[in-house]
């Protein structure tokens, strides 16, 4: 009769990660959600249930800002999906071409912006695009296209797209690297078998490689989605907390920051701020669930 020994070492080895993760992630997350259910009246915190969310979604002053930020967020995401990821895939396809010279150099050069700080990227691009000191107007002038230049970051209709493209420039290295790795893992035999059947060049990419890297593209899409809906830094650095001009670059992150911490004469309201953070969390959760259960489970996988 031997009693089963309690395997203490499992708990011991898990403890540090569990403790740290609970302290810095799980507890703040649930505390934020809890905070969203309260409000402050005469310096006393009182429980109001879902009142903050009702204000956020139905009070015209709040809901207008919320839907504006959400709409901008979707546009920001759309630009990334339509520009960043196709370019990333294309770059990876070119880089994985066996006869390309200096592939390592290009790979590093394209990936470097990803490791730069948002502050540097924001300020550098603000200077490049500055109508006063920037090199963009003079470069356009040099090729005779000065008339195409506009103070993009200051115009309501262009500012958000411009910032989205700056963000694409910064992060295009990530899909490129992931797809590049996926492409390299495709066995030569499959491609050779295709070649024997007469599938070469571009059609080899569309018919053989693309279906095989589709799961990676799915992962990249979901990473882009989460990253974009949590975005804040780039907008804050280049346009400030008011996300000008006229809130045209306001996304959920800047809206939450402004509400939570206050701005200029506006005092911070941690409870409404938490409600916005809660809404952001819900949106991301729903998006990820749709992907996990709606798309990933149906995706065809090939044994390689």
């Amino acid at each position, binding site marked *: 009769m031997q009693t089963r020994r309690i395997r203490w070492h499992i708990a011991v080895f898990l403890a540090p990660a569990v403790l740290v993760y609970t302290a810095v992630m799980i507890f703040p997350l649930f505390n934020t959600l809890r905070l969203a259910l309260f409000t402050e009246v005469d*310096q006393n915190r009182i429980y109001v249930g879902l009142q903050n969310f009702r204000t956020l979604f139905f009070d015209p*002053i*709040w809901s207008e800002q919320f839907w504006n930020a959400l709409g901008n967020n979707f546009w920001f995401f759309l630009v990334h999906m339509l520009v960043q990821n196709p370019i990333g895939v294309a770059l990876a396809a070119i880089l994985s071409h066996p006869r390309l010279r200096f592939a390592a150099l290009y790979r590093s050069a394209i990936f470097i912006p990803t490791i730069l700080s948002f502050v540097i990227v924001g300020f550098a691009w*603000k200077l490049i*695009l*500055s*109508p*006063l*000191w920037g090199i963009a*107007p003079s470069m356009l002038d040099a090729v005779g296209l000065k008339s195409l230049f*506009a*103070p*993009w*970051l*200051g*115009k*309501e209709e262009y500012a958000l797209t411009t910032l989205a493209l700056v963000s694409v420039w910064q992060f295009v290295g990530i899909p490129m690297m992931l797809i590049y790795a996926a492409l390299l893992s495709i066995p030569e035999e499959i491609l050779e078998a295709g070649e024997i059947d007469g599938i070469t060049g571009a059609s080899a990419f569309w018919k053989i490689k693309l279906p095989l890297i589709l799961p990676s593209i799915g992962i990249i899409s979901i990473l882009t989605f989460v990253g974009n809906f949590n975005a804040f830094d780039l907008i804050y650095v280049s*346009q*400030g907390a*008011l996300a*000008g*001009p*006229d*809130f045209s670059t306001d996304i959920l992150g800047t809206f939450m920051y402004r509400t939570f911490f206050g*701005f*200029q*004469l*506006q*005092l911070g*309201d941690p409870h409404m701020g938490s409600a916005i953070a809660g809404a952001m969390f819900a949106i991301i959760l729903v998006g990820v669930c749709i992907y996990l259960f709606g798309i990933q489970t149906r995706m065809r996988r090939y044994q390689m």
Partner: protein
Amino acid sequence: MKRNVLSLALMSTALVASGAYAQDATLTIESWRNDDLALWQDKIIPAFEAANPGIKVVFSPSAPAEYNAVLNSKLEAGSAGDLITCRPFDASLALFEAGHLTDLTDLDAMSNFSDVAKSAWQTDDSSASFCVPMASVIHGFIYNKDAFNELGIEVPATEAEFFAALDKIKEDGTYIPMAMGTNDQWEAATMGYNNIGPNYWKGEEGRQALIKGEQKLTDPQWVAPYATLAKWADYLGDGYEAQTYPDSQNLFTLGRAAIYPAGSWEIAGFNTQADFEMGAFKPPVQNAGDTCYISDHTDIGIGLNAASENQEAARTFLAWVASPEFASIFGNAVPGFFPLSNTPVELEDPLAKEIVGWRDECESTIRSTYQILSRGTPNLENETWGASVAAIKGTEAPEDLGQELQNGLASWYAPHQ
């Protein structure tokens, strides 16, 4: 062992504390002006200590962005300094209402200040004052004297002359007529709307009437400044939509722009950057001879921590802060931050002197949105930023802007409902 260490620590603090008592009072000042640390240590504190032996003063600033939060937690914990540098309006009012600041209404030296100067640190009904006003900033226009001489332009006094001067500069083409951008938004409201506005709403008269609900933001005197701002766009130079605040400062100090819509806080920086002679003119009036109104915005004050153990010494210090001696040291050390006391101060900086001279010719007021009106959501000050930018860009008609701001204000402010 642990207990020994603890009691040792307690004993040593007790010793230090009793040491402090045995000596005379030491006052600690909480402040966000860490830029002014050297000024306080080298000039202000020695002057005070020489006149008041037995009181020592320590200036202990924290970072501006963290000041409110740090101060609040120190006050809650009872570890805040004796003297508290006061932000204007609601931030300090909240401290007073929470019982952290002492009522200073009975301080004799308070009579050295005008009602406008005191308004930033009073209860809404003006019955209690809780901070001694230290300094204000004045709005107007700084101009490049060389450029004006070169083009033969007189300093404009009326609005017609102002726009005629801008036209002339634009026609000549050497200089950008006016250096201001709308990218950062606040300049449009602070150096635009609240700079020229007081001439329209007649300073305090209009501001008080707006607070009482007797005037509305849709009234002509509140809408007209937007119509004037709309005319500015032609003179702001290419790409002003993406021009930031530092861009504008550089444009002017590099001598590329002729006029800079300003706040007096720029003086110290401009003096070191610009190598041409600068002058200043006040916001132009509609017709020659009209009374002029200037925005003389109260920005910094100093109050007494209610929990301080050195109430007497602190009051001595505050009375000294209210004196002409302090005003003259402070005003000359930081040109552009003007002392608020009624006794005129002789300033050495020519530009600062010129600007502060407007106080004798014009009626002073403060920025219209700062007192009471920016307490709710939507916040009137922040809304005014957006409205001023929209006016300049011409994306919305002045009347519509007035209506939007009025609707926002009326949504939470009882006197307007």
